[in-house]
């Protein structure tokens, strides 16, 4: 999206309810800044993230998608993030294989105590995606209309 001639990326952040969503709340509690381009969607666990959701976001014009979950070993549901880790690794690798900028997707493990990490991660991710510019390779033109 262009705002006053400046590119502002659209970022969708999927956060697991137990660690990362709480980590994002903590970032807010501590008044840690990160760009408003990041919009968070709450999911119960990182393993709830279907690759279809990521592709859907890109189709609809997102410029970057990030998944945050509990650190491996700390999953509220004991094993969810282990499956998410494999799924995302393979999906990202596939996107890369198709020539889509690999920096547009990311997974970070953020615990409920890591508000600072959450903010830092988002700052970094937004910066990376801003540098990449608008997502053209993945979007569905029809959705633009």
């Amino acid at each position: 999206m262009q705002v006053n001639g400046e590119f502002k990326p659209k970022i969708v952040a999927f956060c697991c309810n137990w660690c990362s969503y709480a980590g994002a709340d903590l970032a807010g509690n501590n008044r840690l800044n990160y760009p408003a381009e990041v919009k968070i969607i709450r999911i119960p666990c990182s393993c709830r993230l279907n690759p279809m959701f990521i592709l859907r976001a890109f189709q609809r014009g997102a410029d970057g998608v990030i998944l945050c979950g509990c650190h491996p070993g700390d999953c509220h549901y004991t094993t969810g993030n282990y499956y998410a880790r494999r799924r995302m690794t393979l999906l990202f690798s596939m996107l890369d294989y198709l020539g889509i900028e690999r920096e547009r997707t990311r997974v970070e493990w953020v615990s409920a105590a890591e508000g600072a990490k959450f903010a830092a991660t988002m700052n970094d991710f937004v910066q990376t995606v801003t540098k990449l510019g608008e997502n053209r390779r993945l979007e569905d033109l029809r959705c633009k209309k």
Partner: protein
Amino acid sequence: MQEVKQKAIELLQSGKVQRVLGWKTGEFFYDLTPAVFETVEEIKKDFVFSPFCGANLSKYLIAESRKEGKIAAFLKPCDSYSFVQLLKEHRIVRENVHVVGVQCNGMCDIEAIKAQGVKGVTAVRQEGETLVCETLYGEKSVPYAAALSERCKTCKSKKIVLFDELLGENGEDDPDCGRFDLVSKLEAMTAEERFAFWQQELSRCIRCNACRNVCPACSCEKCVFDNDTLGTANKAAANSFEEQNFHIIRAFHVAGRCTDCGECSRVCPQHIPLHLLNRKFIKDTNELYGEYQAGADLETRPPLVDFTQDDCEPSVVYTRGGNGK
């Protein structure tokens, strides 16, 4: 070849099975389609086993094994992997299937034969290392290897994983078949080159769904892309990301379940090398989570429903391999 047909007749006559799943000629002699035979006469008339029996029969057993009576199925090594994978997923009623393993010398592709300059082919037969073609202009010979379809040139295995009886000899898998060479080549390209390559390939997709319909792993009761309630149904192709979305999701849904039988690429009317997507997943899972061959056995957990505590992080994608940025 006669041996296979004879076996089909024998199985029906003995009453061991009530139906036989095999191949019959379509419009052209090289255009064979899977068919179910219920009488000896039908078999005598139409049953064919030739170097064009590429069609993987295992998928048809999902429906066929649920019908009354027993069915005999002729499974080539490729088909047997798909068969075991479907068994593993509880899709086939094992008791109702009599599996006859048939060895395969690699299946031919009429386009490959034409590419050798042989035109007007009306029939073929294998004689050792050569394929003798009867043509409108007399007999012509081509090396058998040159007539092979693309997927058979890098055949992963001549092993028939599961069978009730076997015609010919069982073979071995070939870890050095080089089936990932093309994937590696793509990986070594820059992102821009890869994007251009896939854009070129996938933009030809007409969403005919042939790849999905032939794929033994794509045998869902209802496909997500046909599902209106899910909001993912989308059939019309536009000049957009839609084809890629379809093919990524399709490849992801069969990841860890795809046996690499290559049917998707065989049936694609637009000649899109779809198997390269599936092979990427297979190559990745092999490299990251250990060797895994779908359909090789009934027990091993597929990589996507398994994990270890020290699996690599998704960020491995940013750093892995020599692929250019």
